[in-house]
């Protein structure tokens, strides 16, 4: 029997501990805008507003099959899901709008294909109705929500003489030879995305999707079953203290919201890991299950305070303002997956900024978002500056 020296035993033990602590996966918030998981914090349709979103495969050799999931804003219900087949250097686009009594997604993009290889085109646009969340029994609706794009896998296929890869080859390979696809940590982190909210003008403002690298889906994704974040991936939903988990890498605090003079600034705060169920009655009480560990136990996990700063006096005020949505209970809470705040900013004559702080047992909350700013020149989406909570 071989006896290990104390030094070697100690070293092996240390390596084992490190390996265990990293078991949540090594996902990171992408610094270059590319990854294998994209999160679009908001889409809006209705009242003349449409949202067009895009997914780009920046890899020059690998084709990527990804699952697109649209979720409702209040209870994170899946209102539509489909697969897209992206050849190298490919781009996919689709528009969400309100039309003839329903919310629809329309695309003429040839990356949008059925499993039989039929793909959308200008002559054959694909149009799908978004499902009513919670069977229409709540005030959740399909016209306001957020989007997830999850890379199922990537594969290198032979190119045509013009350097492109035939779409039908990607579709066939996905359904007939799934074992040839790179999955998990081997999927190329090549997807990037952006969205445009379009108003009659036409006028629009765009934002970049949040990209997570090395999310690492393992399973073949289909539309016959729901895919939730963390399902079948090397990255767990997490909890906020678990390094490399989704909740950990999305954790933010002290969101900075700039406010121009006479402008209206509306922070959009989306919790993609909350994943609520539709409310159901238990003993006469409406109750909601939240899948994300951070949100377990109810809505009091997303309590916030706001500090205001103006331009001239640099004064600060910290208070619990009356804002919308109306908090379910004091102090202020953000009750939904997707929250839009109307803040009674006191310095509209000069402008300035305010800061949103989340307080709980741990600093920060796992979120994605943008600021929608409306000035006399139009409107724009501004990304948040924020603090990354320290463990």
């Amino acid at each position, binding site marked *: 029997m071989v006896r290990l020296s104390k030094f070697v035993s100690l070293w092996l033990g240390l390596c084992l501990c490190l390996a265990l602590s990293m078991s949540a996966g090594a996902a990171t918030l992408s610094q270059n805008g590319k990854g294998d998981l994209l999160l679009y914090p908001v889409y809006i349709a209705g*009242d003349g507003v449409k949202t067009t979103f895009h997914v780009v495969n920046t890899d020059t050799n690998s084709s990527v099959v990804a699952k697109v999931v649209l979720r409702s804003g209040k209870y994170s219900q899946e209102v539509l899901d489909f697969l897209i087949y992206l050849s190298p250097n490919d781009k996919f686009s689709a528009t969400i709008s309100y039309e003839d009594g329903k919310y629809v997604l329309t695309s003429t993009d040839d990356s949008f294909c059925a499993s039989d290889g039929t793909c959308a085109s200008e002559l054959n646009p694909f149009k799908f109705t978004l499902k009513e969340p919670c069977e229409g029994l709540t005030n959740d609706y399909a016209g*306001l929500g957020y989007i997830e794009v999850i890379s199922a896998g990537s594969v290198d296929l032979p190119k045509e003489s013009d350097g492109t890869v035939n779409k039908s080859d990607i579709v066939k390979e996905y359904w007939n030879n799934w074992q040839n696809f790179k999955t998990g940590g081997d999927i190329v982190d090549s997807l990037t995305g952006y969205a445009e909210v379009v108003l009659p*003008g*036409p006028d629009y403002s765009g934002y970049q999707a949040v990209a997570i690298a090395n999310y690492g889906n393992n399973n073949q994704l289909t539309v016959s079953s729901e895919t939730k974040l963390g399902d079948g991936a090397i990255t767990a939903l997490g909890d906020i203290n678990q390094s490399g988990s989704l909740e950990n890498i999305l954790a933010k605090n002290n969101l900075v919201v700039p406010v121009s003079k006479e402008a209206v600034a509306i922070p959009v705060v989306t919790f993609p890991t909350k994943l609520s169920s539709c409310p159901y009655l238990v003993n006469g009480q409406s109750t909601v299950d939240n899948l994300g560990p951070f949100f377990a136990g109810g809505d009091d996990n997303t309590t916030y305070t706001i500090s205001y700063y103006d331009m001239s006096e640099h004064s600060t005020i910290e208070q619990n303002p009356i804002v*919308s949505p*109306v908090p379910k209970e004091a102090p202020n809470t953000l009750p939904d997956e997707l929250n*839009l705040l*109307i803040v009674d900013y006191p310095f509209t004559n000069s402008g300035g900024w305010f800061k949103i702080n989340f307080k709980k047992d741990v600093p920060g909350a796992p979120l994605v978002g943008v600021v929608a700013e409306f000035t006399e020149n139009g409107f724009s989406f501004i990304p948040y500056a924020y603090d990354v909570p320290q463990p």
Partner: protein
Amino acid sequence: MSKVDWKIWHKGIRMKIFGKRLLYLGFILFFLRSGIVFALNIYYNEVKISQELKQAFQKYWMLRSKKSIKSLLKREAPYIQDMVSFERYKRYILLYKSTIKKIEVKKVDCPQPFFCAIEFKSLWGEGKKQQIYWFRDLWVKVEGKWYHVIKNPLFFPEIN
């Protein structure tokens, strides 16, 4: 004709021409002000709608096409007038930069006698920039008068 007669005659003709021009200008201004020239065309396609609601709907969207913000805000539901500042409402109306040109009402749904939803297809803008947008317009009757209810989750999340 004497010189004086000619002068009087010439002046008379000039007055006549000037008067006519003034009259024509008056007509043009009248049409412009009334909105007849740049009128919004609204079609009901035999959809049943009460006369009161129809008038309120037409007036609202005519004002919207002219971006008459003060008058428009008075036609929003009373609780919206209380909740929303004029400045924010103005920003909202001015977001819609192009002009609405045509409305085709497709359906009017009144689940309650005091609450109706008007579904319509609309055409905005001119020429190559023309675009179609669908609306589900909400209306509420308060003390015998129909008021419009904004439904824009991005701009008025508290009302949504």
